[in-house]
């Protein structure tokens, strides 16, 4: 019987093995990179039903975050304001603006505006705004400079590694209670030093066990 494989088969096999091996390794590496939340989630900027500008309201007009998102100090969920909150001003200001058509309709009909949630952690994560805000974690830490955003987009990864980094070392992200909603606050001495003092004073001890965030 003639030989099935020629003498070059060994070489072909080695080359093919190397190519497949390298292909597999680079494929896994590419997949791992592309599937990380920092890559696929950061930059998420859905189209909202109303062209509401945070840059105008929170930045130029200087509205406090708390004015609209009024539950952050006392509830797990940061309330998205009802149409009535919008109309509190817009029944007086720019009553006829075509950009507010959806808001007026919603106010007239009583059916809420369907805002699209931007910062959406998985259902098995129980994030509590109240706990973070009262500890002195600023809005800007997780949401970025919303006061400079025309339309809100996700700028932080919001993945577990990112959460756990801060839970293990919260000092750099803890600031005085009155500065929490001041997104452009610049500490006058190292932020970590201020953070450590507040942590000592308020006995802040963020959980790093599973049931801290997953129940």
């Amino acid at each position, binding site marked *: 019987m003639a030989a*099935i*494989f020629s003498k070059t088969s060994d070489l072909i096999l080695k080359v093919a093995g190397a190519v497949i091996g390298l292909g597999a390794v680079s494929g896994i590496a590419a997949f791992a990179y592309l599937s990380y939340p920092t890559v696929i989630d950061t930059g998420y900027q859905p189209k909202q039903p109303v062209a509401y500008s945070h840059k105008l309201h929170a930045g130029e007009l200087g509205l406090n975050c708390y004015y609209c998102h009024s539950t952050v100090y006392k509830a797990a969920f940061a309330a998205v304001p009802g149409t009535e909150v919008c109309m509190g001003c817009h029944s007086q200001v720019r009553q006829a603006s075509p950009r507010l058509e959806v808001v007026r309709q919603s106010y007239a009909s009583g059916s809420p505006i369907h805002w699209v949630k931007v910062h959406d952690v998985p*259902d098995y994560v129980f994030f509590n705004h109240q706990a973070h805000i009262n500890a002195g974690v600023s809005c800007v830490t997780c949401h970025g400079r919303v006061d400079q955003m025309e339309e809100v987009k996700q700028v932080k990864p919001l*993945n*577990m*590694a990112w959460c*756990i980094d801060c839970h293990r070392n919260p000092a750099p992200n803890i600031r005085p209670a009155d500065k929490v909603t001041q997104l452009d606050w610049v500490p006058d001495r190292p932020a970590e030093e201020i953070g450590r003092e507040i942590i000592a004073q308020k006995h802040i001890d963020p959980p790093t066990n599973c049931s801290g965030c997953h129940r």
Partner: protein
Amino acid sequence: MSGVRQDPQLLGVNPPLVQGGRDYHDVTDDISSITEAKVYETPMKYWIALACTSSVVLVLGFMLSYLVANGIGVWGNNRPVGWAWDITNFVFWIGIGHAGTLISAILFLFRQKWRTSINRSAEAMTIFAVMCAGLFPLFHTGRPWRAAYWLFPIPNTDLNMWQNFRSPLIWDVFAVSTYATISVLFWFVGLVPDLATLRDRATGKMKQLVFGFLSLGWRGSARHWRNYEAGYMILAGLSTPLVLSVHSVVSFDFATSVIPGWHTTIFPPYFVAGAVFSGFAMVMTLLIICRYLLNLQNYITIKHLENMNKIILVTGSIVGYAYVTEFFIAWYSGNPYERFTFFNRAFGPYWWAYWSMMTCNVISPQFYWSKTLRRSVPFMFCLSIVVNIGMWFERFVIIATSLHRDFLPSSWGYFQPTWVDIMTFVGTFGLFLTMFLLFARFLPMIAISEVKGVLAVEKHLYSETQREEVYK
């Protein structure tokens, strides 16, 4: 000298392991012809069976896609029964695999020659069962593409956290992945000489290349055989502790917790016996089907089936003993919570599962005390299925009944599976049977070289005439 004195068949004890007077060439022909047959030469009943099972694989594919698309809320497990069908099915499938390892490793080390006709298919069954089992931990994460670093300690920038190495769940990951690796290696090493046989008989260029590649340059020289047998022995030695360790570690998932009904030291041996029990029942089911579909009655004889039934009887009795011991200890411990759990198991809302388990696992194998029933193919086929139903119920009973009565009565609940739970489990049967049928058709499902080893007992029957004389 006639064959009468020496031929054991005529003495009525220890009949030959290969029937029908097959000689060395016949063995090669019989087994290889299954894989070499043209599509129309393979019995139609085989293709019908394959069509049925592969349609069920599509169901599995749909269920898993549905799960990934919607999240694991489509399964019925929820507080207080956080572990339900997913882990029940995982333990069930892992258990099935144990017979393969026991047959290939332990029976090999104990020089049980009857293993040769069944070890290849039992090992294949092990691999397919482990694949089915692996689907459940993989998909219960809901995001299987991230499961690699959730299950294995792989450095990553997504969690910044290791697994909890004190948790038996991570031990389980290592136990099962070791088991899968060793099983595949063992199976493949055993296949090499037979793949070389197929290569040498192959007519098409493509077949030659494929089998030539897979047989790793096997030429059957004395040196090859020496290395092969040493390697096979080492793998058998490595597999032997796995028969005990894998299911022991699986049982730790429960035993190291503090749930009444789980927290018992009897679990490791009890789980291992149950695994071997269910595994042999599954080997039985599969071999009876394949024996019929591919006409292998000469190789998988009543003697083989009877031996397996004896193991089913032994392990089934151990399992029954374990059930009784659990109840005894629950009473003897004086712990009211433990007592409640076991009373509730038998007479609580899941009484039907408990009594199904008791009937199928404890009572049914006792029929095998009868030699007639032990040798009746239709009976053992039915009983092998009954045993596996019972063993599935065992896992369900352990898991669901221990969890549904939480520590606070206000948290008590009742688990019911959803249609996704049910169809996913049915789907894994499709995958398992399809893989097995494909294996039986495209690879030598009986170890040709090993079966020839047990033929040697008849070497004295050197001539055609003598053989005819003996076998009439």
